[in-house]
């Protein structure tokens, strides 16, 4: 048993670290430091930069333009990206639909869709959840009925992240209602957002942001060539997609960077008054969260070590999502609590480019802390709520 990386992996880490230190665009750095939300073009420019370095499709096989990295390298890459406070890439294309297409798609689909994903020419979004199908995804009602050379799509998808930017959407839709199990008869379709009959309606979240949407499909004609794999097997493909989400599932790197910043700030006087370090209760909560995060970091490394040794991840992988979101939400709360009264002003208008800094309420970041806290309540709800995760662990790990 030992904890260090191999010299080769350490050299790789240094290379990644140097890249983010020197190549990460300064205008994005400024936006992130100021708390200004990144927009469509910011993400696309950033992703093209990563692609130029050959690192954008970190998880893809080499034959499709991926890196061919080992699990340890992927982990190091994601950790360094987080430590540099560089944003995650937008997952829907490169981490979600891409792997489904290269695993189950036809040659024609691979040729048609993969290059544009690699080059960030096309923005994808995810059509899974429905107003009546959240945690119980298999109860989805969106229908795709075959009519000549096209499926006719009718239904509503919801919680569709950044659909307002999207060029394409991947959709789970029911193609057969006469099935023994509800998971059967669901198909995986690729849909051009420009197709007539699609409307996108914003959903404003409790922090006032427009991040998610409802997407309505009314008699939307989807060419049969846009069906991935076999009709009725979409549920299986959708599950594969979830496996690709495994890497960096727990968000440990980002949580580490945030906690480190918070602890560093604790010795500074707050608005000319006492530093946070003088508040023992706060410092003890901070320390308790650090312990939880360190445990999680090693739980994730145990999973990684198992995968790197060619084994299936053990029971520890099942708890990453639960603990990862719990810890990140605990950090949200600590960060908000550190801001005191200055967590309360609702002033999203000061987080835009060119805002006059002399007009900041608080130090310019404090008023964001509550917005992040509110926004991130989603983390324990999305991707299969934490209660669903517990059902999964109870069934598949504990055998209950």
């Amino acid at each position, binding site marked *: 048993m030992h904890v260090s990386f191999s010299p080769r992996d350490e050299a790789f880490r240094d290379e990644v670290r140097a890249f983010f230190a020197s190549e990460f665009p300064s205008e994005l750095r400024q936006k992130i430091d100021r708390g200004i939300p990144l927009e469509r073009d910011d993400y696309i420019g950033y992703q093209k930069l990563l692609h130029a370095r050959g690192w954008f499709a970190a998880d893809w096989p080499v034959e499709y333009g991926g890196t061919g990295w080992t699990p340890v390298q992927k982990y190091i890459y994601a950790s360094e990206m987080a430590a540099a406070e560089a944003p995650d890439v937008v997952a829907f294309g490169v981490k979600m639909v891409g792997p489904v297409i290269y695993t189950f798609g036809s040659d024609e689909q691979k040729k048609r869709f993969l290059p544009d994903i690699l080059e960030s020419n096309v923005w994808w979004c995810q059509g899974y959840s429905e107003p009546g199908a959240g945690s119980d995804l298999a109860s989805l009602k969106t229908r795709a009925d075959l009519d000549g050379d096209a499926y006719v799509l009718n239904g509503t998808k919801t919680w569709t992240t950044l659909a307002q930017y999207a060029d394409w959407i991947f959709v789970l839709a029911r193609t057969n209602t006469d099935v023994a199990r509800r998971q059967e008869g669901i198909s995986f379709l690729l849909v051009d957002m420009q197709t007539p009959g699609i409307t996108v309606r914003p959903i404003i979240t409790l922090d006032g942001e427009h991040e998610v949407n409802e997407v309505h499909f009314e008699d939307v004609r989807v060419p049969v060539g846009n069906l991935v794999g076999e009709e009725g097997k979409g549920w299986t493909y959708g599950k594969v997609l979830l496996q690709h989400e495994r890497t960096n599932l727990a968000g440990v790197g980002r949580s580490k960077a945030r906690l480190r910043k918070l602890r560093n700030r604790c010795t500074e006087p707050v608005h000319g008054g006492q530093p946070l370090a003088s508040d*023992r209760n706060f*410092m003890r909560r901070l320390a*308790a969260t650090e312990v939880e995060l360190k445990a999680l970091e090693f739980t994730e490394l145990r999973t990684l070590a198992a995968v790197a040794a060619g084994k299936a991840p053990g029971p520890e992988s099942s708890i990453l999502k639960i603990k990862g979101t719990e810890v990140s939400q605990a950090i949200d709360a600590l960060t908000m609590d550190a801001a005191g009264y200055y967590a309360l002003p609702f002033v999203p208008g000061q987080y835009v480019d060119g805002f006059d800094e002399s007009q900041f309420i608080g130090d310019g970041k404090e008023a964001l802390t509550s917005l992040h806290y509110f926004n991130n309540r989603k983390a324990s709800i999305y991707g299969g709520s934490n209660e669903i995760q517990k059902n999964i662990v*109870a069934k598949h790990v504990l055998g209950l």
Partner: protein
Amino acid sequence: MDFSLNDMQAMLGESIDRFIANEYDFETRQAHAASERGFSPAVWQTFAELGWTVVPFAEADGGFDGTAVDLMVVMERLGRGLVVEPYLPNLVLAGGVLKRTATDAQRARWLQPLIGGERHAALAFAEPHARYGIGDIRTVARADGDGWRISGDKTYVLNARNAHDIVVPARVGDPSGDVGLFVVERAATGLEILDYPTVDGLQAADLRLRDVAVGADARLGAGDDALSVLETVVDEAILAVCAEAVGILQVLVDKTVDYSKNRVQFGVPIGSFQALQHRMVDMLTGLEQTRSLLWWATMTYAEGGDDAKRAVSAVKYQVGTTGRRIAEEAVQLHGGMGVTWELDVAHYFKRLIAIGRVFGDADWHLDKLAG
């Protein structure tokens, strides 16, 4: 990065597992705990014969040159078996001090027979007034001719009931002196041993030392930083009891899940109730998080990492909080049976509670981590 055990560690672990499976069931454990000395001398001899007692010692002492990882392997297995034989007080605590400080003559007199299983020893690491402060020592050793006279009070001295030799930390000269370490043999005049069983089935004692005379050769490692030795030994002991705790927690989770599959109420196994399923998932999550911290702390300590001290406090805090919650849940999910003396789960619970407090409870260690 490699989290697998090497062949030696795997063999060691398997041999202990086999012994517990074949010769150390719960009834046997209870019989040993209730016996005259509170453990089985025959079992202790077996430990020595099988080579388990040499694990924490250097080759020069006839040992195995074991690292913190090797000790972790042993202690986790002993935890699973809820073993009462005094591995920790003899080998990790008293042996830990002796191996770092004793001269050749002192090794021959106290350490060799300890490793060989012929003598028993203890380390008096706690004083009544000090709560969990290792360096908060009021016992004083005053020079007297060639030797020393030691006076003071010690509490929770594990294995003192059976110890031939007790390592006593004391301030040298006067209450503001440096810390020194002295071996007091049990027959010493002026030493009163008030022994008692503890809630977890082990044996401990309070000591009253009143002008206890020891020779010049009773002092260990004169000139060394004795306090730092003591703290190092206690850090290793913390890792050891935390490994024991992980073994205990594993058993508690396994037994609780098994029980929930077999216990039928309202016509169904209680494990089919979601309210209980989620609580058992929380138990499992807590166990795996605790194991992760134990591995991190043990490897960091073994590799001499900068944050070894923090790592030790972190895993101790975890065992005192999450570990305690898991153990309480195990009792709760066993219902009425969980609160009976008859059920093994209750005794695993009690040992876990004792571990949660020895060498500092969760609050004590969280306070260190808070900075």
